[in-house]
């Protein structure tokens, strides 16, 4: 069985002034796959993720989302290109680290905004779907609350419902739990596990090793603008191929303390 390719990024380059953030990155994500991106800060993880839905435009390379390709080496302008980029963004939802809910809209309004104003669905249909999604992330009773009244974890779950409401081909998560207290992060991670079990295609930047072990089909390790290795999680966490990944994992274990039942290994 050949699997459908959800995202295919080829030869992505991105520099901010003097700083070369991405140097020739290739990444392929198949439908139904969960890819976790790990790496030290400054390694280019977030930039890569933002390039996948063209929130950041790569300087070179191409991004293909479900057969629609944006070639970043060619001309930068034009209506057709803008429409193509919007189309790709509509198909790739993003959940941000910093809980970017719309503060002037209730939880439900946040969820139905995209379906109504971008996907042009009838309001009654969007509301019905929105209520179902809020129930799905366990927040049915919060539909009329404004974000200011929600906890960080609840906000992030609304953000996930908002992402799902676009019925995206893939959801991109940029450190969705790193701004949250651990117990609030846990409820968000649980919601993401449910999505994975559901077969949702996801690309996730996270430092949560236990979560990655459990959910990821593949871990991509980034350093200094390159993907140094892509492995199945049990291989990556037990026996990483590159010295940089080994050093990184050792550092993670040191700062978090060794996980229970696991001795630190050198």
């Amino acid at each position: 069985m050949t699997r459908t390719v959800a995202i295919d990024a080829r030869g992505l380059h991105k520099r901010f002034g003097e700083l070369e953030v991405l140097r020739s990155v290739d990444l392929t994500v198949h439908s139904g796959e969960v890819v976790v991106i790990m790496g030290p800060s400054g390694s280019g993880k977030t930039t890569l993720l933002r390039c996948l839905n063209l929130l950041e435009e790569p300087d070179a390379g191409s991004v293909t989302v479900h057969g629609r390709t944006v070639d970043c080496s060619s001309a930068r302008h034009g209506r057709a290109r803008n429409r193509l980029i919007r189309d790709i963004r509509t198909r790739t939802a993003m959940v941000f680290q910093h809980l970017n809910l719309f503060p002037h809209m209730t939880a439900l309004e946040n969820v139905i905004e995209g379906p109504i104003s971008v996907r042009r669905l009838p309001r009654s249909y969007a509301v019905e779907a929105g209520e179902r999604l809020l129930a799905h992330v366990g927040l049915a009773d919060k539909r009329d609350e404004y974000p200011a009244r929600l906890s960080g974890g609840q906000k992030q779950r609304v953000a996930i419902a908002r992402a799902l409401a676009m019925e995206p081909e893939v959801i991109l998560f940029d450190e969705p739990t790193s701004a949250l207290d651990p117990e609030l992060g846990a409820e968000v991670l649980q919601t993401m596990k449910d999505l994975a079990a559901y077969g949702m295609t996801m690309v996730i930047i996270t430092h949560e090793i236990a979560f990655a072990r459990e959910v990821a089909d593949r871990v991509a390790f980034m350093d200094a603008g390159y993907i140094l290795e892509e492995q199945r999680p049990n291989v990556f966490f037990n026996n990483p191929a590159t010295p940089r990944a080994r050093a990184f994992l050792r550092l993670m274990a040191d700062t978090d303390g060794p996980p229970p039942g696991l001795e630190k290994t050198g």
Partner: protein
Amino acid sequence: MDLLTLSLPSLLGGLAVTVLLGVVSFALGSVLGGLVTLARISRHRALRVAAAAYVSVFRGTPLLIQIMLVYFGLPQLGIQLPPIPSAILTLTLYAGAYLSENLRGGILSVDRGQWEAAGSMGMTYGRALRRVVLPQAVRVATPAIGGRFVSLMKDTSLASVITVVELTRVAESAGSSSFRYVEAFVMAGIVYWLVNTTLSVGQEVLERRMGRAYT
């Protein structure tokens, strides 16, 4: 002291003109200010420069000079405007410059993440602005905009120098014909104060309504 030096009909007439000048200029100035704001945050450099130049000129020169220039100066170029339209034109240009600054401040105060969240779901620039950024920007800018409205109400008194018979001019002529300047100007002052107090109360109600989502 007889505060009714001003006859009630002339007082109400002056008040009507003052309110007309203030409200119409504020409404037109808001539209103009909105357009100028869009120009100021535009991707096109020429638009940005033109808008910034306009704001700089109308904020950097006295309103009295602007009023006289439009009323006495335009006829030299063959454009003759009656006093009231002339005053409204000037007050609109003047208010537009300030309001665009208030609005721009509001837009800049909206977190970049809001643009990104809107963009990441495929919204166009215009839609993101209308649905996501402007509602938040207007809320932030409302105190400043309300203050601008109150100032504008008072600034309309300068229209008296180009023979517009608004509140200040009514008071002035009543004072000079009866030599009851104190009564006339105190009365006019009270009326301005009443109008602006009403505006301030309205602004507070509006702010409370818009702030509901944030408490």
